[in-house]
């Protein structure tokens, strides 16, 4: 038997089947390795995006929102660098082939960047605006290799396109953060932001119910949470209105300024 196996083995080495499978082996390993690298980058993006969101929530409690926004933008630049790594990995590939590897990270980035955008502009960032910031200059070191294939694609610029579905899922998650921000604003005595958030959230909610179940399954799954968030925000506005009803409107300004006055002396007590 040993002899025969030896013989087989000899045959295998030269066999076209075996050499074909050696090619397959490399192709599969290369693909899996790439997938794994993308998963890791995606995890990094998720973590950094989450931290950016935490940072952005601080705007409701600090005097200089601009400072926080700037800091967040710097953090998001870091995240975009990582998305650039994904774009690098996907150069010449079909984005959808590895989509499952990085979709969690991209969704979290959309959540963070749209939150940042809302705080600054009080509007919903568009998909184009998201994508416009995902244009990368090609790294120096790849130029050498790239020059040979450079004729095919644009040589110095690399782009990453967020899919409409990832954008949608990111925006769906954004609503949770908006709800948190709304409750915080009420807690900080902000009488204005909650109503703005309520209107904005209602617009997004109506947008999602307009899309309904035509979207991907994951969107439908998030609709319930979205509806809950809207309910919480509407309740907060309701409470503000109901409580505010107890004083005549012309007194409101007085009351607010006196409140500040009342609260100051207390610091000594604490």
């Amino acid at each position, binding site marked *: 038997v040993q002899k025969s196996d030896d013989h087989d083995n000899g045959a295998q080495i030269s066999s076209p089947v075996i050499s074909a499978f050696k090619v397959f082996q490399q192709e599969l390993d290369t693909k899996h390795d790439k997938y794994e690298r993308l998963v890791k980058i995606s995890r990094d993006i998720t973590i950094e995006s989450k931290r950016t969101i935490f940072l952005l929530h601080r705007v409701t409690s600090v005097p200089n929102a601009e400072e926080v926004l700037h800091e967040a933008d710097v953090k998001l630049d870091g995240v975009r660098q990582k998305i650039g790594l994904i774009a690098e990995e996907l150069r010449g590939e079909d984005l959808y082939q590895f989509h499952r590897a990085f979709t969690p990270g991209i969704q979290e980035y959309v959540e963070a960047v749209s939150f940042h955008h809302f705080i600054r502009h009080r509007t919903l960032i568009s998909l184009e605006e998201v994508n416009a910031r995902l244009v990368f200059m090609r790294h120096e070191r790849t130029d050498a290799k790239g020059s040979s294939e450079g004729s095919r694609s644009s040589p110095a610029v690399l782009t990453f396109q967020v899919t409409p579905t990832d954008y949608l899922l990111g925006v769906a998650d954004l609503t949770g953060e908006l709800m948190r921000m709304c409750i915080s604003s009420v807690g900080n005595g902000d009488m204005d932001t909650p109503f703005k958030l309520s209107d904005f959230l209602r617009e997004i909610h109506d947008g999602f119910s307009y899309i309904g179940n035509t979207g991907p399954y994951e969107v439908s799954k998030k609709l319930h949470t979205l509806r809950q968030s809207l309910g919480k925000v509407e309740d907060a506005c309701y409470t503000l*209105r*109901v409580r505010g009803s107890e004083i005549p409107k012309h007194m409101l300004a007085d009351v607010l300024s006196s409140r500040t006055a009342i609260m100051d002396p207390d610091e000594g007590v604490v």
Partner: protein
Amino acid sequence: MSVTEMFSYIQGFLSADQDIREDIRKVVQVLEQTAREILTVLQSVHQPSGFKDIPSKCLRARELFCTVRTQIGELKTKFPVEQYYRFHEHWRFVLQRLAFLAAFVVYLESESLVTREEVAKILGIEIDREKGFHLDVEDYLAGVLIMASELSRLAVNSVTAGDYSRPLRISNFINELDSGFRLLNLKNDPLRKRYDGLKYDVKKIEEVVYDLSIRGLAKEQEAGGDK
């Protein structure tokens, strides 16, 4: 008849069935689109500004229900009338949504509970199974329960919009609805579950009325005398 012939013959049956389902699915998809449009129209009553022109929103919704009737008319032609239950699953979901929308329009117009007959009329269908494409009791009830939860949201938002008398009226309405449902011996699981949700809606609206009462806001407007 050989086995091959027999199976070819059977394949005819199966294809026919699949074609029917395909046709139904397409019409239902269009119906769902219209239902979502009506929803978008009616949902805008929750906006602070939306309380002013409820009548015009209802009119717009009523127009869209014309389209619904046409589309359901289309749906009816897709399968033999006596096989309603064979394909029920395909349109059950959208029919419940439409029943909800019809109930909501009627409530916004007249603050009364739509009857099954009215829903059927608005959708251009029957209530007796024998007479054609009809509205099942369970689907009607499901629609009514969806509306109840929408009304609890409306009670909250009407206060935000400065309308203090509406929540009281909603509260009375929803209490009556609750008593009605308590007459039913619900076994059917999904309906039972929906009904359990009604308790929360009742409680929620009572708390709104409470908030108004304790601040004298309920009386205030009542004194002003609307409705």
